[in-house]
């Protein structure tokens, strides 16, 4: 009999664990699903209590977000499109340069042992850890003095500095995964160090560079603090635009929901592309090096 009850309790705990897991999956994925649905609801359905599952699709939110259709040209043309353009430009240029600098610095830190390397790596990582608000107190002044406030160039500079640290560490992780013998074989067989780097090592970390770019883009795209303080009108990025919707007149929920979905879609695409290197990205290239 003891055997039977032992397997009973085992089965009971297994069901209990399964229940907890399903609750967590609901808790984790439900809100995203709820956001997608709410962005298609009209004003009435949006505030209905109990919440409505079946409703007729209402695209006013999206129309006002893109200033087309009914809301074309009207005041409520909330004009998120130029914020979207700003976000795309700032994020992609910022990512490109951050990854370029990060790849070069990451390679040298992976291959060479120079004096002060430990300090350099700590300094680079700590730039990633800085609370944005603390640094912004000075940036606010500096940008004003240099006339960078409310310019895309200013935000690109911020995107580069905020992500170059991450890019350096992740790329160092990927370069550490490439055996040191690659350069040694090339050098002994008559090639220069630079040749080995460009033609042998870089092709071996192609996946790594793409993953680093994915991470930097996502973090640059989601950046809010710097953009909100350092922009006033025409350089606003999408996250800032969304937050300004909750101004004095209360919250324009239909527009926020639609703009929120528009903001999430590129992130989910990039996320899908880099899912294999998620661990490398989130732990600065330290874990996940197989």
């Amino acid at each position: 009999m003891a055997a039977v009850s032992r397997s009973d309790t085992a089965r009971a705990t297994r069901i209990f664990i399964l229940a907890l897991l399903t609750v967590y999956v609901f808790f984790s994925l439900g809100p995203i699903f709820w956001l997608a649905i709410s962005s298609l609801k009209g004003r009435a359905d949006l505030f209905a209590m109990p919440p409505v599952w079946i409703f007729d699709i209402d695209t006013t939110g999206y129309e006002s977000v893109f200033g087309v259709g009914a809301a074309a040209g009207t005041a409520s043309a909330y004009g998120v499109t130029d914020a979207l353009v700003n976000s795309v430009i700032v994020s992609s240029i910022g990512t490109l340069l951050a990854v370029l600098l990060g790849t070069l610095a990451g390679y040298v830190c992976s291959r060479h042992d120079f004096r002060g390397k430990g300090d350099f790596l700590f300094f680079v990582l700590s730039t990633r850890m800085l609370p944005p608000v603390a640094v912004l107190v000075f940036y606010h002044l500096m940008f004003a003095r240099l006339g960078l406030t409310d310019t895309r160039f200013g935000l690109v500079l911020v995107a580069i500095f905020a992500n170059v640290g991450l890019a350096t560490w992740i790329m160092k992780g990927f370069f550490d995964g490439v055996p040191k013998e690659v350069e040694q074989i090339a050098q002994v067989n008559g090639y220069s160090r630079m040749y080995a780097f460009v033609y042998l090592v870089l092709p071996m970390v192609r996946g790594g560079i793409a993953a680093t770019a994915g991470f930097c883009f996502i973090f640059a795209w989601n950046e809010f603090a710097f953009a909100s303080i350092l922009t006033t009108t025409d350089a606003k990025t999408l996250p800032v635009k969304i937050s300004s919707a909750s101004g004095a007149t209360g919250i324009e929920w239909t527009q926020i929901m639609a703009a929120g979905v528009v903001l999430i879609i590129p992130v989910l695409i990039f996320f899908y592309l880099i899912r294999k290197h998620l661990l490398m990205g989130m732990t600065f290239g330290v874990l996940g090096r197989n």
Partner: protein
Amino acid sequence: MSDALLKLSGLKKAYRGKPALRGIDFEVRPNEIFALLGPTGAGKSSTIQAAAGLLDLDAGQVMLDGRDVTDIDPACRDLSIVFEGFNLLPVLNVYDNIAFALRSPSYREDEAEIRKRVHATAELLRIAHHLDRDVGTLSGGEKQRVAIARALVRRPCMFLLDEPLSALDLKLREGLRSELRQIHRDQNSTILYATHDYHGAISIADRIGIINQGRILQSGTIEEIFARPANVFVGRLIGSPAMAFFDAEVEGDQVQIKGCDQTLPAAPFGLSGRTDGAMQLGVWPEDIHVTDGNSGANSASVYAVDNRGYECAVQIDFGTGLFRKVLDEGQTLKQGETCGFRISEGAGFLFDQASGACLSHQHEGAAR
């Protein structure tokens, strides 16, 4: 031109304070296979990288073919290298991996010549049928053959092999080793071969350099090493089974061996100067005569038995220590049996207790 093809003198290198090379001095003569034998971490790889110029030395000089190449870029030293694990560039297939050596600025050849030499070398190493395969699909043995082919195809003035075979199965290792030896004889090439495996070293090398903690303790032919081991460490590494060691006390002209009631005359050891006191007596197993029962001078017991087909080796426990010995033809002993042993006159070497350095300078080799 000095008779050495590669001459390393006074190589010193420390990584963040931890010394890897503490003064490496040895030379490799043309058409010779020189084995660098020592445990893992003794500095073998650092020595090979120093010779190839891949290491920024703190001090020391590298002479190659009479030329001082210490500061010359690795690309211009005309050496080739084979590592233990990673050798093949995954981005290239087998043919391109071998041809890689002939497409560099320093050693460029035209494509026709490359094709001829790659096929000839692939034929030599029996991998001609793998030429267009992706390197990822090759087995361990095939990968090392391709690496050796790439090293051969360029006909460098010297080959640096850093434990090229120790990752392979025993049978594969022996096969590749005899092929390497055969190729060496055909192409009269010069090879520096680093390994931690005694059997590997003696079965391929003309001369052996024993390295430990960044220093070369001794280099010479196996006969020279048997004739006069320079250090206790050498005795423990060389020979299968290795040297037997006894604590000994030198008083006047007698050498009293602890743990057995046999004393040896001190004269044949040729001790320079009056050096009494405790020492270590090292004796090659071949110079110890083991008898069953307790007819020999000193009584002991058999600790363990290792039969190797033709011969049977035993480990003898004589109270204060152990030593191993291959029994003579037809003699057999069981674990636990008592036995006796005698050290033959004039055999053995005295080593300093502290430094382990060899003190006796007898010239007539104890090894027959």
